[in-house]
């Protein structure tokens, strides 16, 4: 069995308004940071997972992302995978 460290990034789709991102952008400007054109907030999920090779692990992660980690009506996801 191989072990993998997976980092899943879940983001609101570009068409979905992100009010928390807007509020954070506004605070960033108040802090004095200049030049911020856009700021959107997502989630990062770290998973350690075992499986027989990368393909099998990718299948499991795809299922998790599609059915649980992200709601694909409003969110997109991508992930990176590192063999431990």
């Amino acid at each position, binding site marked *: 069995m191989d072990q993998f460290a997976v980092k899943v990034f879940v983001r609101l789709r570009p068409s979905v308004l992100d009010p*928390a991102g807007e509020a954070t952008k506004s605070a960033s400007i108040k802090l004095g940071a200049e030049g911020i054109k856009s700021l959107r907030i997502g989630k990062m999920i770290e998973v350690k997972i075992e499986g027989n090779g990368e393909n099998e692990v990718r299948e499991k992660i795809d299922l998790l992302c599609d059915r649980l980690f992200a*709601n694909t*009506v*409003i969110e997109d996801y991508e992930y990176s995978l590192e063999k431990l």
Partner: protein
Amino acid sequence: MDNFTVGVVVFPGSNCDRDVSWALEGCLGIRTKYLWHESSDLSDVDAIVLPGGFSYGDYLRCGAIARFSPLINALDEFVKSGKRVLGICNGFQILTESGFLPGALVANKNLNFICDDVELDIVSSKGSWFNNEDEKQTIKLPIAHGEGRYHCDSDTLKKLVDNELIALRYKNNPNGSSFDIAGITNEKGNVLGLMPHPERACDETIGGTDGLFTLKSLILK
């Protein structure tokens, strides 16, 4: 009819289950039964309410974890049999997360948790969940949510409009919902999800009775 029983689902974090039960039993004389989320036996209830609250602490997304409970798994057959399911607030979020209703509920546009009475237009008679004998009727119901902004893509919105699946629209959109949507039904009409709380508008002493009709309609076949 005398034995008609409405199942009120209880998740860890539900907080309107008792209100719903009180409104059904105390105001309408309809028998209720609490259904723990780990139960998958729905054989002795005739309709189901998914009440408001914060199931599983709203972890990940509102309704996202509740979707995987044994009870929600069993709900598919219940809905297919034509029995009625009402999802209020967090219940609506669970119904969208689990695919019984299209779209999703996301954070309010102004980021506030909004606690208010809102005016709503009854748009569709599908499922007979609302009293809309008049051409266009308005009701007033309380809302209490932080994630009540209905979102769907334009194709889904067109489908909702064309098939008359939009049940309620806000008169003054409080949360930024697409097309002012406050509640929708499935195509058959036996599943209704809405952000406002009809169970909090069932007695004049607490500010109105506009929610009675919807709760009463749970007993329709």
